[in-house]
């Protein structure tokens, strides 16, 4: 009976081993599950490069890339403010809106986590890419200083990805679709979607370039893209839907504002 028991146990353990995983694999999987659970409980602040990630060389390179664009944006802002004194307060207030919406957690169902919209798509549509990049840089600076989202050493990189590339992608998508007289909802959706995804891709490139060491740049970039995919793919779609909703709301409630800021022409709206 005893022998039978031992034999049964042995056979059972072999079957268990064949059907299931070994101890080391169980340990690894437990570790991954714990890590994922920890990540899920906190917000997924995916697309701001945190303070200190980029080495000095790359931090300076991204500042160098950002400065000409921001200077152009400031020059454009100053020119517009000379004609309309309320323009500077307006840009400041829109930056405050971007700051607030980027602090609002949005549930991302596929990742089972929360993330936040960038708001670049909507500011690019309303203010154009140059001034939108200034708005993004102001919001990023305040976030880095007060909330530790992003960082001062990585501010240049974050401005390039979110402020410049995101704004250009969002604005280009909106204008391109508007030339083909696409419905406002569709144009707004693709502006938000592409602004978010372009930011995501650019940030992945910046991260990969900054931390790769001896690893191949492209391989690491793909790994980063895959790591953030569960959050960023649905978030881009959500940001697109949000941007579309906002543009349609502005069109219905205050079309005069869209005309004033030259988003739409007078003949395109019924005031």
């Amino acid at each position: 009976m005893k022998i039978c028991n031992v034999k049964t146990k042995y056979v059972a353990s072999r079957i268990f081993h064949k059907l299931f995983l070994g101890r080391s694999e169980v340990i690894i999987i437990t570790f991954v599950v714990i890590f994922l659970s920890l990540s899920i409980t906190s917000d997924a602040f995916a697309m701001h490069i945190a303070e200190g990630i980029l080495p000095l060389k790359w931090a300076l390179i991204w500042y160098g890339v950002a400065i000409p664009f921001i200077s152009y944006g400031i020059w454009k802002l100053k020119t517009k403010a000379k004609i309309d004194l309320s323009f500077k307060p307006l840009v400041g207030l829109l930056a405050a809106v971007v700051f607030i919406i980027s602090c609002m957690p949005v549930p991302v169902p596929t990742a089972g986590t929360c993330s936040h919209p960038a708001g670049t798509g909507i500011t690019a549509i309303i203010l154009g890419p140059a001034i939108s990049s200034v708005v993004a840089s102001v919001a990023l600076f305040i976030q880095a200083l007060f909330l530790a989202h992003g960082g001062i050493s990585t501010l240049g990189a974050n401005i390039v990805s979110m402020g410049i590339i995101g704004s250009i992608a969002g604005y280009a998508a909106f204008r391109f679709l508007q030339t083909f007289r696409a419905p406002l909802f569709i144009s707004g959706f693709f502006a938000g979607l592409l602004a978010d995804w372009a930011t995501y891709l650019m940030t992945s490139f910046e991260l990969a370039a900054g931390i790769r060491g001896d690893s191949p740049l492209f391989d690491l970039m793909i790994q980063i893209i895959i790591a953030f995919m569960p959050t960023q793919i649905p978030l881009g779609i959500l940001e697109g839907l949000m941007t579309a909703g906002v543009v349609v709301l502005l069109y219905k409630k205050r079309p005069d504002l869209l005309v004033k800021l030259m988003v739409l022409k007078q003949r395109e709206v019924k005031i």
Partner: protein
Amino acid sequence: MHLLLGEFKKEHILFSFDARIKILVSIFSLILTISYNGFIFPLLILSLCTAYFISIRVPLRTILIRYSEPLFISSVLLLLKFFFSGKESLFSLDLKLFTLVGYKDGFIDGLILALRILSGVSIIIALELSTPFTEIMASLSWFRIPKTFIEIMMFTYRYIFVLLEDAIVIYNSQKNRLGYSSFKVSLSSFSTLVGTLIIKAFDHSQKTTTAMMLRGYDGKMPFLGHSKFKKKEIIASVVFMIALILLWKI
């Protein structure tokens, strides 16, 4: 949003220091941190900043919230470096579908990166906790940052609180009218909230401009003036920076 309005003891010696010196020292420390390739210096900076936070009695919750994002990102990067970057294999596991390899040099690189992130963040938190926003802005204008950019930041900082109150009122009223009750409704409610905030931003900007013009606003905002640098503060900060360089070279 209480994170923007720190509630802690504001009697530390650093509060009285010139904001320009604090910004310079912080940027200098940040440059040393991100250009260092090892454990000692970032650990030292992290310990110094933690000691400072304890001495000014910053609530633990505030610190934990501020570190939550850097901690999350540094963990992801540590794992990425550990499993996908390196040459010297530490262990290898056959997981049926793929082989998981942990690299020793990747782990060390990841740990250095994680420490760099945490110490960099602690420097900026220390600067922010010891300097009022208006003083930081005034100092930035002294460093020749374009005034238009600083003006926009001043407007933004001022109106974050105003618009946040509006956002809370709109959110509560949406919730009372069954907003955010399902995923689809949540999306529609959120778009309405953002759209309404933008409309409010337009309206506030018009009212603010009118009010400021009545007080003589001509498109330029005045900033805080600067007092002369104090010798004691300059000497203290130079000694501190030299000490940092010596530690950095170890």
